[in-house]
């Protein structure tokens, strides 16, 4: 009886250990996801994009290109 009880106790401890390890792994992965999310945010921040696009001669919608005309009745609008 005592041996069986000890065995059961040991199994419970092992299970708790495995669960704990898994939990830590999940948390670590979640932490890595957060870090990657922030890394993406740094690269896609408006000022970062503006700096990246500067001097690239990109035909962007909006900005100064649109100033000087009204697109309300522009037949080419949306094309």
């Amino acid at each position, binding site marked *: 009886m005592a041996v069986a009880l000890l065995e059961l106790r040991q199994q419970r401890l092992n299970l708790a250990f495995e*669960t704990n390890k898994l939990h830590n792994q999940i948390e670590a992965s979640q932490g890595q996801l957060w870090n990657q999310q922030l890394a993406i945010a740094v690269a896609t921040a408006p000022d970062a994009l503006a700096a990246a696009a500067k001097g690239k001669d990109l035909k962007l919608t909006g900005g100064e290109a649109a100033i*000087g005309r009204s697109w309300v009745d522009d037949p080419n609008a949306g094309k």
Partner: protein
Amino acid sequence: MPTFSTSSAKGIIIMIAGLFAVMVGRVAYLQTYGRETTISRADRQQHVIMTLPARRGDIYDRNGLIMAGSVQTHDLFIDPKFMQDCFQEDGHSLGEMDQALDQLGAIIGQDSFDLAKMLGDRATSRFVKVAENLDDSSVQQIEALNLPGVGIQANSARCYPMGSLAAHVLGGCGTDGNGLDGLELKYNSLLSGRPGFARETKDAQRRPIGVDAQDYLAPQHGQHLVLTIDSNLQMIAEQELRDEVELVKGSKGEFVAMDPSTGEILALANYPTFNPQTLSDSSQDVRRNSAVVAPYEPGSTFKPFIVGPAFMWNVTTPWEVWSIPALTWYTPYGRAITDVEHYGDLCTWDGLVHSSNILMSQLSERMGNARLHQAITRFGFGKRTGIDLPREDCGVVYNLNKWTRKSTESIAQGYEIMVTPLQLARAFSVYANGGKLVTPHLLLGTVDENGKVVSRRAVNFDSLPQVIDPDTAAEVRRILCDVLIRGTAEGTRSKIWNIAGKTGTARIAEAHGYSATRFNSSFMCCAPYENPRLVVVCVVHDPDRTIAHYGGKVAAPAAVKFIERALTYMEVPGSPELPLPPPQMAGVLFDYSEKDYTDRNFGAIKEADETQPQGGQPEAAVDP
């Protein structure tokens, strides 16, 4: 032959009985008096309680871009006593321990001697934090060493991926992770969440075995904030403000852009600015959110808030002509009031367009102090706007019983009263939205850690207080369109959108009166005139007078450039033709020409002639 000695037997029995008695006594002690101590000691040996920090919530702009977030970092801690015990018990030498510390020091970039000294000084301690913010590769190397008593604890650090963008709105966090200013402080409790705990069971080697379910409370992570700020508009606002302040060599500047129908702040900028990531690199002055906490005397931008109620209360009409005989006019009690330019007699419409101090003084005299005070307070001046930022200033509006005879003219020109740029934006929204007083706010809603919406702010427009009737609001807005066409901001008119605005150039108060050479230049406007989507206030303090100092030359170009870029970004259709002034106005307007309104080919936005000195009298020449 062995002999049996009864005395020896007695001695042995007594000894055994004594030992037994001691054992019983010890057991009795452990079960009674020493029970608590024993249990707590065993508990301390077998369990370790770990605090599980809650992750601080992120802050998103209205498009879902992260403005502030938390990155996971790792801290290295050592249990010096356990480490030493292990190295001694396992038959290792202390030299091997020093060798292990050498390896550890190399990974974390610390001198092993310093490390050993630190651990030696706290040899009896069970927890010494050795390094912070370790990267993943360092953590892996440390774990590979498999040193006894060495552990890694996950932590988080605040990160601002947009750098200094919206720094004054966000505020910043201290090293303890709590907000110090801005939204980080205002919503600290929402963002912080609640930490959890885990009571780990350890084996004899103090290695974690597991955590019982009842010994674990998951941390409640902080909620994410979704702001009304649009980071693209914020960037445009900061760019335009910075360019303008640097161009005119101003000491500082503020910029507020809000949606007049809801009170949502779309951009709020101050210059100079700072990076919330490195708060210690900036001074307290730079970190102050002046747009919200630093009131100033607005000068002529204040005039519409007197004219509107005057129309509503039938004190005057837009076409009433006022006698302005010369550049200087004397009040009934002999105070000299001066205009920048003499236009001759002006109607009320033109008084606003050309920002006539004399006309405004005469109008205020007619209104009387009581109605003047009532007009001001209706727009919310002298009270906090209620924006969700800490330390908001309520500005200065003296009680009516403290007003003097001079107050009438001073207030009419925007002196003897102090407002924040945010209060100006809120008050001008009244004209933009048809007469309602909105509450500026920055929080659009909150989202929990799983992305579920917890709260969402909804504005019931109809329930907002009505300050001005819609007809009066539309009338004043229409008059203010002329400011950019033929008034004090002439030359800043947009080719695409009709903009209604008002300039202000106020002398800066000094120790012994008002400065003759230092000014605050401001401009507030809304666009498009037909259905305003934006209200903008731009203030530049103390520009170099040899470059430019009038509100129409300093602040208006920046505000209009912002509006053009912002409305383009917001895909707001261009304005139709601006309606001509009513027929009864045509005969009384100064230098009226229908062509001014119908000809949209007036060229690109004219820049203020920044290279030429802008002399002349200040717009508001007040005898302080």
